[in-house]
């Protein structure tokens, strides 16, 4: 009974100023949460030659060859290739490694006009094919970062 009386007669709530401050505070907190969540969803842009590195992958040109266990790569384009991802396929299963781990890849990458050759025979003994995908390096807000180009679009397949 007392409670009903209290509810019906005491109609005071928080003042409009406090309500406004609360609303603004809530909006700010929710905005911050959504911003942090969205930032985590979108990848940080990696820039190379003033463009997104994803676009620069289009300009990468390289030739590959494999003979007697020796893998040869020639960078004939104008984009330095920082690294190569090697996908070794064998009877339906595959394993991806960096060429740095398989052979003596130059530490600064393969600049334009440069060539590479290295023995990878020990790693591809029973493999059916290898796919070579270029890895580029670009700058982002958090410093230099590497980016592996899309394998389906830019990968070179060598059937062994």
């Amino acid at each position, binding site marked *: 009974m007392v409670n009903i009386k209290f509810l019906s007669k005491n109609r005071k709530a928080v003042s409009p100023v406090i309500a406004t401050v609360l609303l603004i505070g809530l909006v700010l907190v929710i905005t911050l949460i959504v911003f942090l969540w969205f930032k985590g969803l979108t990848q940080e842009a990696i820039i190379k030659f003033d463009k997104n590195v994803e676009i620069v992958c289009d300009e990468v040109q390289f030739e590959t060859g494999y003979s007697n266990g020796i893998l040869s790569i020639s960078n*004939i*384009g104008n984009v330095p290739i920082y690294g190569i991802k090697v996908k070794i396929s064998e009877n339906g299963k595959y394993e991806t490694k960096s060429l740095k781990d398989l052979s003596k890849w130059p530490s600064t990458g393969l600049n334009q006009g440069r*060539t590479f050759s290295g023995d990878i025979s020990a790693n591809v003994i029973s493999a059916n094919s290898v796919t070579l995908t270029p890895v580029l390096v670009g700058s982002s807000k958090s410093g230099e970062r590497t980016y592996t180009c899309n394998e389906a679009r830019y990968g070179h397949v060598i059937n062994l």
Partner: protein
Amino acid sequence: MMFKNKKAVSNVIGYILLVTIAIVISTIVFQWMKTYVPTEPLGCPDGVSVFVKDYNYNCTKNQLNFTLTNNGRFNLSGYFIHGTNSSSQELAILDLTPYTPIGTGGNPDTEGLAIFNSENNSFGPGAKTNNTFNFTNSSFGQIYSIEIIPIRYQPTNNNKNRIISCSNAKIKEIIVCS
């Protein structure tokens, strides 16, 4: 109070808020998307072309001389040159620039180039140049073929000269002893 105080922000302030929010959102989206806008890649013009007019390969001394002619429409500054030492080698990966006087070395950025004149596309259309390569001290012995990719300096968007590889004008020549 809720029913009686129907005042809100005025129309003008409402519009200003809307326009400001739209501008802020557009700026954010523009900054994010502008890196995805494709620009013309820095490439070689279509009319670049060279050919080996004649060559002389002295297998005893392991010395190669060839005359390179610019039969294209554009000036060039030099070339990348790679070779093979057997017919079974698919890809020319032997860098031959250390064996010629015009080859660059030392600096990893310019290593592997044969340059006629630095920072200058001095090799004009119709020009010929005679280049000598001495492979006496090489580890690979005799060469079987050479591949030449012409290069030229081209200005970038930042007005800096950058070496551009003309891979569409690449030539291959099988070398036999004379």
